[in-house]
Each structure stands twice: as C-alpha cells, then as structure tokens.
C-alpha cells in the first residue's frame, strides 16, 4: 500500500479527529461503541480517501463520510441511553471566564440533541457546527428549502425537550 498516501491520511485525520469524536459522542452511548464507531468511520474514510481529490476541504469531506457511517453503515448495539452520559460530558472552556449557567445549558442541550432521531441529530449537529444550509442539504441529500424547514422543526423539538 502507498506509504505516502497512508501518512497523508493519518496526519489529516489526526488533525481533524475532533469532528469524528463529536459524531461518535452523539451516536453512541458508551466508550466501547464510541471506539467501534470511530474505527468504522476511520476505515470508511480510508477506503474513500484515494478518491478524495482535494477540491473540497478535508474536514468538509469528513463530515459526509463520518455522518453516513454513523447513520447508515454502523450497526448500533442495543444498549440504550444511560444516565451517565449527562454526568460525563464536560466542556473544555477556551475562554478564561467560567460561566456555570452556560455550562449547564450546554450540557442540557447536548443531552437533548442525543434524544433526537438519527436524521434530526445530523441536521442539528451540522447546524451547531455552523454549516450552511447549502452544505447541510448537500450532505443529507435533501433540498435546501426542506433543510431549512426541517431545521426549524428540529429546533422546536429541542426547545420542547429543553423546556418541557
């Protein structure tokens, strides 16, 4: 196998691995499944890598392959959401000031997003990652108008989960 290609791939994935971890966090419920999914995404990315022409950003390309793997290809284990999730999530704060309420709100939102169905989850995740509607619609394969409409509905769902 081409060593240089391998090296280029591993380096880029190492740099951008947070995207994959975030998706694994959203779509799995324990560390073992997290690692399983990470591995499957890595394999799928690696297989598709020779065809990656670099006309889009590596990270943009990654979102698509990683989400496709999480939603479509990965066989989820039967384990259900456990309550540890909420406790174990901690947000590293880049800014100096520590805002307890925001931290709490973020945690709650994270838990709320995890409660959405697989597709809504992808939609909201891409939105939180500040992807344009054009990009979201291209990733999921739905029209841009529908992506907007459905995003608003997903937001409503989130709001309901957050403020029951």
């Amino acid at each position, binding site marked *: 196998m081409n060593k240089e290609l391998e090296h280029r791939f591993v*380096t880029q994935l190492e740099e951008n691995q947070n995207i994959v971890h975030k998706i694994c966090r959203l779509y799995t419920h324990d560390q073992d499944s997290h690692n399983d999914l990470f591995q499957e995404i*890595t394999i799928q990315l690696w297989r598709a890598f020779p065809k990656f022409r670099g006309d889009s950003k590596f990270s943009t390309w990654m979102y698509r392959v990683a989400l*496709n793997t999480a939603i479509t290809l990965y066989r989820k284990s039967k384990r259900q959401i456990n309550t540890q999730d909420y406790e174990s999530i901690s947000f*590293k704060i880049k800014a100096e000031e520590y805002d307890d309420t925001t931290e709490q709100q973020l945690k709650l*939102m994270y838990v709320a997003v995890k409660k959405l169905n697989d597709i809504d989850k992808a939609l909201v995740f891409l939105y939180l*990652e500040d992807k344009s509607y054009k990009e979201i619609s291209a990733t999921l*394969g739905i029209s841009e108008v*529908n992506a907007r409409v459905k995003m608003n509905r997903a937001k409503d769902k989130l709001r309901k989960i957050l403020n029951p």
Partner: protein
Amino acid sequence: MDELDKLKKEWQSRELDLPKMSYNDIYKMLLKKSSSIVKWIFIISLGELVFWLSLYFVIPDDNMKLMHDMGIGPFMYYTNIIHFIVFGTFIIFFYKNYRAIQVTDNTKKLMSNILKTRRTVRYFVIYNVGMFVLSSIFIDSFFYSNSNKLYKVMDFASKGVPQENFANVFIITQVLVGVAVIGLLILFYWLIYGILLKRLKSNYKELQKMDY
C-alpha cells in the same frame, strides 16, 4: 437572538472533553476490517446466491432419472436453462448495485443504493421461492394424475409400499415438506434482514419524509 443560537456560539467556542487518538492509534485502525452493514449484506447476499445456485447442482441424479422416466425430462432441461439465464441477470444486477454504493454520496443516495442492492437479492429469493412453489405444484399434480406410472417407475411395490392410498399419501407428504421449507426460508429472511436493516429503513423513511 434565540436561545439555541446563543448556545450555538458557545458550542463552537468551547470544545468537548474529547478523547484523543494518536497517530499510531489511527494507523493501526487502517489495518482493521470493516463491520459495516454493507459488508454484511454483501456476505449474506453472496451466501444466498451460492445457496440457490448450488441447489441445482446437488439435486441427485436419481431425481433427474425419475423426471426422464416420467417423461418430463426435456421440459425440466429447458426450464433449467431459462433458470440459469435469469440467475446470471440477477448476479449482474446485484454486482452493479453493490458497486454503486459509495460512502461519499449524500446520505439519501447512499441509503437508497443500499436498499436497492438488498431489493435485487430479495427479488432473486422471491423468484426462487416462486419457482419452487410453481414447479412443486406442477410436478406434484403431474405425479398425482400419473400416480400409477409413478408407482411403477419408483418400483414401490418391491419396497413393500401398498398401492392403495399411495397417491394421497404421496401428495400430502410433498405438500407438507414444501410448506415447511418455505416457512423456514421466510423465518430466516425475516430474522436476518429484520435485524440488519431495521434502523437503516426507518432512517431512510425519516429522510424521505423530510424531503416532502
């Protein structure tokens, strides 16, 4: 600005306490094997194709001889040829659909291609089960109406099988065996694909709903 958008800003400015994989961790993963559902669908589908194909090779010679002695040898011969042409067509379609599955496609297209591959194999199975049922009906009714000839050809007299009621016992056994085989097949498919494709199907429906 709404509450969610405020949180969106926070989401980006902060980072989750995420695990970190080293270069070597990632490198090792490249050598691991995939366990995606596409791989499983491919393996199981190949198994099905091989299973149905091999059935035509493991049919005992006695059986063919019986067909000949009963006078339907040529008929069976030509049906088998048609059968294999249909088999070949299915295999070409299956291969083409399988090759069309690309993880870099958009989610909807990817899902639709996976389901298409699956559908090809399902039609293949339906075709086989259908042919199995049709040919059973045909052969059984043919044997039933020619039960005297069958009794002689199979030489049941020397095996001590009484000719009285022979036709009825024969047909009942054939039907029971046939129904049992089909029942088992349906159970098998229901179990395997039910488990494998449940989530994919419901996600696909969700996505389709989104686009209307």
